[in-house]
């Protein structure tokens, strides 16, 4: 009987270990939790296909995540909540928040380009300067419109 019990114990441990391995290694679950850090708000005219959980980067390094995306019916803007890691405390208040695309067809993410102000953004503050996502169709439309205006050589 003890041998059976040892085998069953090992089986239960291995099974639970496999599930933990999957949860930690293969999914977006992070034990540190997303409750730490502070929230900044960015308003965009158009967020393209930005989604919740998209990374927030500064100089290309991920420093936070998008936690919520809402539509503001008064200003017709998208309100994007960014949760910034707690150790990044010194984001100047004239920082530029832009939506970029990783690669040609990749995920969209929020990129922050620091300003020169010595005032720092606090929890709940919003970005003064934002730049919307580039919509491929709009760009092509503008390009066609422009080239139609130019006189033919």
């Amino acid at each position, binding site marked *: 009987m003890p041998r059976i019990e040892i085998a069953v114990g090992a089986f239960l441990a*291995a099974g639970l270990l*496999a*599930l933990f391995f*999957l949860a930690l290694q293969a*999914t977006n679950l992070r034990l540190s939790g997303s409750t730490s850090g502070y929230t900044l708000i960015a308003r965009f005219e158009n967020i393209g296909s930005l989604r919740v959980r998209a990374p927030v980067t500064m100089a290309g390094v991920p420093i936070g995540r998008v936690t919520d995306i809402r539509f503001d019916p008064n200003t017709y803007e998208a309100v994007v909540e960014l949760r910034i890691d707690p150790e990044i405390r010194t984001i100047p208040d004239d920082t530029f928040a832009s939506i970029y695309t990783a690669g040609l067809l990749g995920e969209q993410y929020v990129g922050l380009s620091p300003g020169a102000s010595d005032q720092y953004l606090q929890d709940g503050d919003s970005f003064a300067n934002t730049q919307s996502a580039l919509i491929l169709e709009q760009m092509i439309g503008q390009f066609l419109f422009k080239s139609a205006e130019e006189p033919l050589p």
Partner: protein
Amino acid sequence: MRRFLAQLGRRGIAFFARLGRRFLLLLHILAGSGELFRHFDQLIRQLHGIGVRSVAIVSLSGFFVGMVLSLQGYQVLTQFSAEESLGLLVAASLVRELGPVVTALLVAGRAGSALTAEIGLMKTTEQLAALEMMAVDPIRRVLVPRFFGGLLAMPLLAGLFSAFGLLGGYLVGVDLLGVDAGAFWGQMQQRIDCYADLCSGIFKSLIFGLVVIWIALFEGYDSRPTSEGVGRATTRTVVQSALAVLCLDFVLTALLLGV
């Protein structure tokens, strides 16, 4: 014409009577679940029979399924130069679908058929009747530990299957085909959701475990007490389990995706 109608009626009544016995058995098992705590060693013995002895086949199958997924996925993804998404492809297919489904099929073949044969033989050799003679409820004593052993073992086995599949996919994708290891894990961690994907997979395998073990126990308990009857019951277990798992998988996936 009248003979045809009579035949149809007999079939229909038999079908519904069987369905009723099936659900009564499940209720009886659930009602007797308190027995688990009094005979805990029985549960451990069944976990050994259903779980531990399936570990080898489940992990080995998972390993090879992961390897072949990686190989096939790579062929398609290179056409779009999206090899970096290989990890995502392997993990999503394993965790969401292949893990629960293939594990359930394997357990149905490996443990379900054995359970049916065991219980069918117990019935044929009148061991169940002997238990009843001794005022021991055979359902509580024989079926309950097997039922919960299977129910508990299934998600753990599915987890093992997926974990070994990931390792196999990693070996083939990264070591053999040269996909970047960081991208392999990174894409996976970015896009696979712990609740929407992993937990729904565990939920699925719990349901599959319930259905597979339920079918196996019922077919054994309801088998005709002859050697031929036990053989037929075993076949029916495997066929019905496979069908039930595959059909349920579609229904559950549709429900979980909220279509």
